């Protein structure tokens, strides 16, 4: 079959509407009789709610209701559950509106519903809440100290769970007999996701049919429907439709079941009017689940041949005030299982303690666990190479898993299905001119200029996920994916996918593949997603799963269509189905090109069924539920080159190069765009971004004046290429690319900065490498204060 569009850099069909401002987002919607909500949020990280007096707000003209947590609890609305459980995990309740205590700045204390947003926001300021401020704790390690204030009364030690993986005894023995060991104490900085579109929800309740509709900014509308129906509100699942229309970015933050969605659904029924809520950016900063926030002690051991013998990791992973939907999976299976990286390390042990703190919940953020694993592993590798007096690239090369070792069983559960790491590394080194760069670096150092080169190799496990496997690990969800391919009488095709596109370009890339499979014009295909009322059950988009898992389901469904079409063609052409071939857009009798039917002919006859096989159902549509056999394992090499200004401490990115291996690339324009955006986000973590809390749990970087996102002038033109190692276990051999840039670039930039600072004897600094931090390290003066006093 000719693959006409696979691999073609088609412009995205989504772009005209996004570029011209005609996308259709939740906040763009207005329904007849619609009213709006504003939330009253706690200004304290920890406070007892003694009394709520809504009388002034209720007399404000245009106010319809002030809803409290007690009211919703009395109405039978349950707590919001988490979607992943570990043995012994503590899951204290998370009510949409808290009624006893506020547990982080931004915790909802009451909701005001009014005729419009202006009135709602004015009235929210009139709700009088009598708080008794209580001591708070923001840092994970502080929460674990004896006597630390408890976030939840029934978890007095703040320990949500502990988790470990690997053979501790074998690791300890390897360290005991090591030739050399290194140890890093490091912090993986907390990040705010900052999707371009703030979260929004609009709920409608129709009394006549007792049906709800929720439009919301979601990466996975079916998960919301399931959680709301089965756990939180008791709405029968078939009476709730969840629609995620155009969504402007998620990065994980729009996976989770948030309180506001419950509040607007409750209010819509209570008032009999549609209710909308849209986050202000300042609300996004304190309520969208944050990412990362680890405190880690990481160690590596090598033998006398420079082979890594063991890695030992102990991490405190801050969960924030409540467990959101995937939080327990992120610093565990998506983290500890990735600590082999691309290396043959035989013994790995990882222990994680996850405390509650009085901060915004922490959950998956682009890469989710894998950037944290890659960062610490690649930092250890660079520090160890330096200890051994080896070039960091040569140390890596010595330890890479060789191409003939696949499938490769790691000591931390994962079995890598395929890989060719050294060839990928060599391609990147050649592209960047590594030896010449090192020569330049030495030259410039003589002139007092500090160039840094960071080379990292990485692996990720994505394409979530084999359902039975994740179920055995604690997932309260399946991770297969669905597709429904519906051919209309005119030969046009609707493809319904359970994945969701919120920037990834599925409407283009998936259509390319469908057009190839069915051999029809791409214009005849539409990809439909984001509506529980239109598509079969699906688990949404995260964990770089849409192409490897979602598109695999689509491909297998289209192949069912082709099989059925062959039967119809055989009947029409009076031949055996086995003699029908599908070529050049036609179904023809093998060797007799004149005897052919077009896709349109088949589609029409499937619907008319006038001249039709007696034993075949009419119609032409197919569903496929695809459960992957394994994760997929994209990998690559990323190289950052930076220069540090010793006078100011400012780090400037000079070059960035990536060679990714995501298998065959469907649409290079989209894949490269994913890599570019991911690299920018990872660079942001390394150089710019940090959610800073003070001791009282107040966020100090809660707006764009203080929280630094990367801008165009922080970036360089990215030099990018691919190697292609297909995945052996899915129909197209494809792997994920959505998170790779973020997983790799933080570590690459970090290693580059540390490489630049090596002449100053600096071994390690925590991210972000802000100018003052770097300047102080260079000048060896005082330690940097955590926050402004």
């Amino acid at each position, binding site marked *: 079959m000719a693959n006409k569009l696979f691999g073609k850099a088609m412009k995205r069909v989504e772009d005209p509407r996004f570029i011209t401002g005609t996308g259709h987002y939740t906040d763009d919607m207005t329904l007849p009789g619609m009213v709006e909500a504003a939330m009253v949020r706690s200004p304290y990280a920890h406070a007892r709610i003694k009394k709520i007096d809504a009388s002034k707000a209720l007399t404000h003209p245009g106010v319809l209701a002030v809803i409290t947590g007690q009211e919703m609890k009395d109405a039978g609305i349950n707590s919001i559950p988490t979607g992943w459980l570990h043995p012994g995990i503590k899951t204290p309740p998370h009510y949409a509106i808290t009624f006893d205590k506020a547990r982080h700045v931004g915790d909802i204390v009451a909701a005001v519903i009014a005729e419009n*947003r*202006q009135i709602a*926001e*004015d009235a929210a*300021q009139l709700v009088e809440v009598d708080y008794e401020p209580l001591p708070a704790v923001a840092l994970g390690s502080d929460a674990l100290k004896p006597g630390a204030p408890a976030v939840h009364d029934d978890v007095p030690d703040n320990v949500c769970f502990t988790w470990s993986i690997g053979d501790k005894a074998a690791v300890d023995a390897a360290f005991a007999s090591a030739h050399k060991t290194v140890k890093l104490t490091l912090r993986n900085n907390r990040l705010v996701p900052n999707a371009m579109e703030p979260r929004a929800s609009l709920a409608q309740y129709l009394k006549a049919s007792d049906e709800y509709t929720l439009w919301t900014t979601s990466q996975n509308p079916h998960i919301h429907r399931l959680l709301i129906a089965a756990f939180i509100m008791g709405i029968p699942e078939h009476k709730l439709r969840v629609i995620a229309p155009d969504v402007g970015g998620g990065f994980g933050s729009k996976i989770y079941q948030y309180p506001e969605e419950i509040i607007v659904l409750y209010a819509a029924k209570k008032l009999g009017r549609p209710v909308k809520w849209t986050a*202000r950016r*300042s609300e996004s900063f304190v309520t969208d689940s944050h990412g990362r926030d680890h405190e880690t002690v990481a160690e590596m051991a090598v033998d006398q041949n420079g082979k890594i013998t063991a890695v030992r990791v102990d991490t405190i992973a801050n969960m924030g005030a409540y467990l959101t939907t995937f939080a327990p999976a992120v610093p565990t299976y998506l983290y500890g299982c990735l600590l082999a990286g691309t290396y043959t390390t035989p013994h790995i042990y990882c222990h994680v303690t996850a405390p509650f703190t009085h901060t915004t919940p922490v959950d998956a953020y682009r890469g989710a666990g894998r950037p944290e694993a890659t960062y610490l592993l690649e930092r250890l590798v660079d520090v160890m190479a330096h200890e051994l007096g080896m070039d960091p690239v040569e140390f890596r090369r010595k330890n890479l898993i060789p191409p003939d070792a696949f499938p490769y069983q790691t000591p931390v559960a994962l079995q890598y299905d395929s890989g060719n790491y050294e060839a990928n590394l060599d391609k990147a080194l050649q592209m960047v001119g590594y030896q010449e760069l090192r020569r330049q670096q030495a030259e410039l150092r003589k002139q007092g200029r500090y160039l840094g080169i960071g080379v990292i190799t990485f692996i990720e496990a994505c394409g979530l996920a084999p359902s039975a496997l994740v179920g055995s690990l604690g997932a309260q969800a399946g991770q297969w994916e669905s597709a429904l391919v519906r051919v209309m009488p005119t030969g046009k095709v609707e493809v319904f996918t359970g994945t969701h596109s919120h920037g990834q370009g599925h409407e283009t890339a998936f259509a390319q593949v469908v057009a190839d499979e069915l051999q029809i014009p791409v214009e005849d295909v539409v990809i439909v997603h984001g509506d529980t009322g239109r598509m079969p059950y699906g688990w949404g988009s995260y964990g770089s799963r849409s192409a490897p898992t979602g598109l695999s389901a689509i491909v297998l469904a289209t192949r069912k269509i082709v099989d059925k079409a062959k039967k119809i063609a055989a009947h029409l052409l009076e031949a055996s189905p086995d003699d029908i071939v599908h070529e050049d857009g036609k179904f023809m009798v093998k060797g007799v090109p004149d005897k052919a039917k077009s896709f349109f002919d088949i589609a029409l006859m499937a619907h008319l069924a006038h001249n039709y096989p007696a034993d075949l159902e009419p119609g032409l549509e197919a569903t496929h539920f695809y459960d992957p056999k394994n994760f997929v394992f994209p990998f690559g090499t990323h190289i950052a080159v930076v220069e540090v200004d010793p*006078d*100011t401490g*400012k780090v400037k990115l000079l070059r960035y190069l990536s060679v990714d291996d995501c298998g065959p690339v469907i649409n290079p324009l989209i894949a490269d765009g994913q890599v570019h955006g991911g690299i920018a986000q990872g660079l942001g973590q390394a150089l*710019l971004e940090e959610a*800073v809390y003070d001791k009282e749990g107040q966020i*100090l*970087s809660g707006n*764009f*004046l*203080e*929280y*630094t*996102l990367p801008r165009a002038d922080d970036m360089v033109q990215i030099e990018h290429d691919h190697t292609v190692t297909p995945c052996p276990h899915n129909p197209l051999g494809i792997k994920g690319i959505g998170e790779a840039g973020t997983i790799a670039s933080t570590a690459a930039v970090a290693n580059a900065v540390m490489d630049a600072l090596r002449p100053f004897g600096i071994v390690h600094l925590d991210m972000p490498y*802000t*100018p*003052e931090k770097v*300047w*102080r390290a260079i000048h060896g*003066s*005082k330690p940097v*204060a955590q*926050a*402004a*006093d």
Partner: protein
Amino acid sequence: MYTAEFAYKKATSVAEAIQLLQQHPEAKLLAGGHSLIPAMKLRLAAPPALIDISKVAELRGVRREGDTLVVGAMTTYRELETSDLLKAHCPLIPQAVYHIGDPMVRAKGTIGGSLAHADPAADLPASMLALGAKMKIQGPSGARVVEADQFFTGMFSTALQEGEILTEIHLPIRPGARMAYAKFPHPASRSAVVGVAVVVDGTEVRAAVTGAGEHAMRLTKLEQALAGKPLTTENISAACQGLLAPDHLNHDLVASREYRAHLVDVMAKRALMQAAGL
């Protein structure tokens, strides 16, 4: 958040604006709105009325009057950046303006709005001091002129009195003077953590810093150290040491007092090296 409710009045002349200010005593003047509107949306400011002076024709544009360039207070950053008169006689202003915000901000923001707002991290106050600008102020009792050195009085506070409007900025033309602005931008807001403007006029060195303290200020220690001296690398380096004591400087997540003081030295040196063509 949405702003609190306010009345909106649009002035078409300075006289009308002054009159409107008298009728609405708690009102705020609206220029480009890039500082005021965000403050109102965060409800840090809730003026009962806004008097929009951004379209008052007599407040816009750059013209030459003898040895002075007269800049209307409502002249936008974009107009400053592209003004041939400024480029020819006062290149410091276009250079400093280039570092402000982004093209959208520069299309709306005005010189008068920025100077009257007196944000301690604003770029232009340093240039005003280094150039020796004069501020023309009009109010119900007539017009007066205030030296830049007397104009900035504190954090977000100036010599402007209740009911007065900053209408013009007078920049002396200094033939042959060399000038430069060196800025260390805040990584997020891109305002000046420290910005140093220098004007080398014959043997006189005028220098001022913004971002470092409560308001922009002259770097008198630097000016005195270099007075009458040739601008060599050695002299500049020697002069740019400990220009400001850290004690009273601003401090935030990006820069402690100590680091800010250090940046003042570094930016002063960079501005001088650039002005001296080194």
